[in-house]
Structure formats: C-alpha cells, structure tokens
C-alpha cells in the first residue's frame, strides 16, 4: 500500500507534459530541420501557457514569415501567419480591436528586428499588452542562411561570405530603450528558465519582449563550422551567456561579449495601451 502510494506519487511527478492538448496534431511533424531550436522554444512556450492557464480561444498567436514564424500553424489557437516583418502590426490591430484577447507573437530575429524593426520599437513605445518571443538564431533560416541583425561580427552567412562586418543589435537593449515594460532573455538550452521567463512575460500586462537565443544548425551551424545542434547549443547558448544572478558578481570585462539571461526589466507601473484607451473612452463618453 505504502509502496503503491509512493509509486502513484512518483507517477504524478513524472507524467510528461501533455503538449498534444495545445497542438494541431494533424499538422505535425513540423517543417523544422533536425536539431532546430525552434521546437524547443515552442515547447517551453506551451508549458508556460499551460502554467498561466490561458484559454485557447482567447489566444491569438501571430507571426510573420520565417521558419520561426511557422509556429502558429502547429498550435490550436486563433493563429495568424502574416507577412514578413508585420506580425506585431497585425497583432496590434487584433489586440486593440479586441483587448480581451491574449496576444503572443512568435517571430524570428529577421522578422522582428530587420524588416519588422519599426513595428517592434513602436509596440514597445505604446506598451501594448502582448508577448513577443524572438526566436533569435542569428540568421535567416527560411531563406537559406543570410546575415541578420543579430549575426555576430565575423560570422559567416550566405550574404556575409567574407565574414560579417556589421555590428549586431542588442535586441533587449533596443526593446528597453523603446519603452517595453517587460524585457527578458533566455535560450533554448535553458528551456526550464525559458519556461519561467515566458510565464512571467505572459502574466505581465504590457509589452513583453523575450529574446530566445536558439540555433539554426543547418544554415548558421554549417557555415560556422559547428559540429552538431548540441555543439551549437553548448557553445552559443550555454557558454555564450550568463544568468542575471551570475552577472551581478561579474565585472563588465568578465562578462565580455556573453549575453545576460533572465528578466532584465519589469516595470509594473506604466499604463498598458488598451487600458489607456479604455480610460480615454470613459473620459470622452462622460464628457459627451
């Protein structure tokens, strides 16, 4: 009996997370290449959604164009696979027209920060309530491996065949400076931390930006001589980052060019955009 109970308890702990509840199973397997980090990000996101307990019908997941932007096709929400770079602008329309919806935007580094850069900074400025998850693999996966605004200097890509000479964005710094009230960074390697960060991001009211360092083993990996997907995760996501807690005890030199993970900004005081709009309506309707 006691043993049985113990087993039961154990089972409870070890029942694997039921992703199927959120997936459009008929659409799987997904198109992502073997070892692509995008799947890991998606799984972390689904666990976070589950933790927050969002109603599936209340979620609008929007994306642009790119490998990462295929995410909405696999999940059982209101899903909008829009145009390259425009996901946040489309999502702004959905949210403002129907503020009770929960908006998730799943997009690539190119989608968010290259062609979509303007919508990105303005959504941050407005502090409109949505969670933008950047699948930041430092490359254009979908189109076959071109340089992106997050490709590190010196890295190879099909459009930086002599080594990238452009400085990269610090996406989180740009988001912060533009006014986003929640900014965080994690990696596909740190998928449990990522789940936590995403949970906090979804729960946060206002613009939440989560940059997820993840990997494109096929285009970024091959061109930059990584041996495997795990090798990339090890080198870029694990060794290339430090947690916020670690960073506190390190000097800037010690941190070097490693990225700091964790919640980098969380401002709960600012008024969210749709709330501000509701206040405005209340004000003018009273006046009227």
């Amino acid at each position: 009996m006691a043993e049985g109970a113990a087993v039961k308890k154990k089972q409870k702990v070890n029942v694997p997370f039921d992703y199927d509840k959120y997936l459009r199973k008929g659409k799987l397997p997904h198109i992502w290449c073997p070892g692509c980090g995008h799947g890991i990000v998606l799984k972390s996101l689904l666990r976070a959604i589950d933790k927050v307990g969002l109603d599936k019908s209340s979620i609008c997941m929007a994306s642009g164009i790119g490998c990462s932007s295929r995410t909405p096709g696999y999940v059982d929400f209101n899903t909008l696979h829009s145009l390259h770079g425009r996901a946040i602008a489309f999502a702004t329309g959905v949210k403002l027209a129907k503020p009770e919806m929960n908006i998730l935007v799943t997009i690539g580094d190119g989608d968010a920060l290259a062609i979509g850069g303007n919508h990105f900074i303005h959504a941050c400025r407005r502090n409109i309530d949505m969670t933008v998850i950047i699948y930041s693999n430092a490359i254009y996966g979908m189109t076959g491996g071109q340089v992106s605004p997050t490709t590190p200097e010196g890295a190879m890509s099909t459009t930086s065949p002599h080594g990238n000479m452009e400085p990269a964005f610090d996406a989180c710094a740009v988001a912060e400076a533009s006014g986003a009230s929640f900014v965080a960074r994690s990696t596909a390697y740190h998928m449990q931390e990522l789940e936590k960060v995403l949970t906090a991001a979804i729960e946060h009211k206002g613009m939440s930006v989560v940059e997820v360092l993840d990997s494109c083993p096929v285009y970024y990996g091959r061109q930059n001589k990584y041996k495997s997907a795990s090798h990339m995760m090890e080198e870029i996501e694990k060794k290339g980052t430090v947690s916020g807690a670690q960073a506190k005890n390190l000097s800037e030199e010690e941190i070097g060019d490693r990225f700091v993970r964790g919640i980098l900004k969380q401002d709960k005081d600012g008024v969210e955009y749709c709330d501000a709009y509701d206040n405005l309506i209340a004000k003018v309707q009273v006046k009227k």
Partner: protein
Amino acid sequence: MAAERVKKLMQGNEACAEGALYAGCEFYAGYPITPSTEIGEILSYKLPLIGGKFIQMEDEIGGMAATIGGSLAGKKSLTATSGPGLSLKQECIGFAAMAEVPCVIINVMRGGPSTGYPTGPSQSDIMATKWGTHGDTPVIAVTPSYVPEIFTETVRAFNLAEKYRTPVFVLFDEIIGHMREVVTIPHPGELEVIDRAKTDVENKEDYLPYDNRFEIPPLAPFGEGYRYHVTGLNHDEDGFPTNDSKKIDAGNRKILAKIENNKEDIWSCEEVDTEDAEVLVFAFGSSARSASFAVREARKQGIKAGLLRPLTIWPFPDEPLRKAASKAKVVIVPELNLGQTVLEVERTLPGVKVEGLHRVDGEPITPAEILEVIDKYK
C-alpha cells in the same frame, strides 16, 4: 415621429468618415497623408465617442496591417491614405485579398508619381489600385463624384467588403475630398448596411475559414472559439498552407471568381442621355462633374452627347459601357492622368473610336475642355 435628418455642409473627407460610422466602422488604423488626412482626424475624434478605436500607426504598412488585424478581430475596419501611402500598403492589401479579410481603403488621390503634387487633385491611381500589389488580385473600387455620394459609396464599400470578404477601395480626388456640399445623414436603417455573415457550423471545430461549400465562406471573428489559421500563402479550405498544385490553382482562381461572378451586383453606374448618345463621355470622380456639365451644354447645342459615370471602376464596368456605347461614334474619356481608364475603354470597345482627355497639371479638367472635344464630333 421620426426626427429630422441631420443636414450638414461637409467636406468630402468628412462625409467619408461619417459614411464609415454609418456603415458600422469601429476600427481605424492609418498614417496621415495629404489630402486624406481629415478622414483620420475626424475619426480620431469620433470613434472613441462610440467606443471604437482609432490608432495612428508608425507608418502606412502598419496602418494597413493593423486594419486587417482589427477586421480579423471582428470589427469593420478602415484605413485612409493617398498615393505614396497606397504604394506602401500594397503588400498588405494583397494579404487581405489572399486571406479574404474584409476592409475598406480610402485613397484620396493626389498628383503622382512619387511625392508629385501633394495638394493637387489627380485620378492617377486607378491602375495602381487594380494592379499595384504583385500577383493576380481581386479588386473592388468605387468612385464617388459628389460629397453626399462619398457618404453613400463609403457605406456601399463596407457592404461590399463584408459581402465579398475582400478589401474594397473608395477612390476620389483631392477636389471632392476637400470640397463642401450638403450631406443629409440618413436615419439608421434607411441605407442598407451589410454585416459580416455568421458561420452555420454547429461544432466550432468543424469551422473552415475557406469552406469550399461557399463561394464566399463566412469569416468567424477571432476569439469566439473558432480556432483557425490564416496565412498569405496558398492555402487549403482549412486555412493551412498547401503545396498541392490543384489546391493552389483552385484557391488562386476562387478569389478572382467571386468578384467576376458577381460583377452585376458590384457594378453601379449613372447614365445620362446614353440611349441615343453618339458622343459618349465615360468619366468618374470630379471629371464626371465637368463631363456632366459639358454633356448638358452639348445637348443644348443639339449634339447627341451622353455620359456614363461609373461608380464602380473595378471590376471594370465593361458590359454597361458596351451597352451605353452601342450607338456611339466616339467615346471620350476625360481623366486626371496620362491615360489609364482609357486603356480599359479601348480594350472593351474594339473598333470604336476612343479619345482620352488627360490633364496632369494639378488643375481639374474643365467643362469647356470636354466640350471642345465633343464639338469635334458633332
């Protein structure tokens, strides 16, 4: 005892905003540009009063994208712009057409190309409206000539958008946009207002956003439990991307066919003295007002002149034109561009003499100019 209708001297752009409100528009996203600016300005004031939303986006692309987003969320949505803004919106317009999301786009035409002559009137975006976005795209465009007509045609544009699940353009030129005439606002119910069709599926899981059972399948708003997928890629009836060439073919043809098959419903034309017209003038927008004046004068002079004034320019009213031109020796096409609509007229009327009258100097075409051409054929 019905209340008096509101009767007001309005600018064309104001009539447009009022027409949108009458039609049930609750969402506006756009970016200001001369000479369409007042439409957004008025709605930025009025929409919050009725609980609707106005947002000035960071650019025209964002304006169009958010307009489509608002529509997907179930609100009748509008954006307004002019030439350069139209060019920028083209990619998103193609998305709305492909994904079959209703919305209305106002284009108050100014002198082009490029920044051109921002405060001058023009009718030079006719072809850009039809062909501006890449690919084969369905287009409905209406072209009012009078301020009260801007009101009614804006209402009609919303109706067509919802009925045909497609972006609909309202095109007028700066002259009418900034001119003032009296508009009598109809009571609610007086003008037909078409709302979005509701799906009949019992089980929400069975809902197909591009259901092949329908020529125009109902579009369920986001957030009401129908959890479907929308993409600008070629897609199947469930909304998911497809690589099946049969389905790609069918999808591409379907969005054009729904317009083509319903042309008669979409067309609207005014005919003046066309029955026996030997000299037919084909004109829309402000040029049609000059043409109306000129045709009246010509009749006084004993010339058998007539006017066909299309209120729908896309799909092109070829049948009405053929009918109206049945007795015509010549068709005169005055337009504020260097030859756009005239090309369609030529194509529609092989063997008929067609003469374009074009002006692109920032001034309207005068009745006298048209009369001069009519006189050549008397």
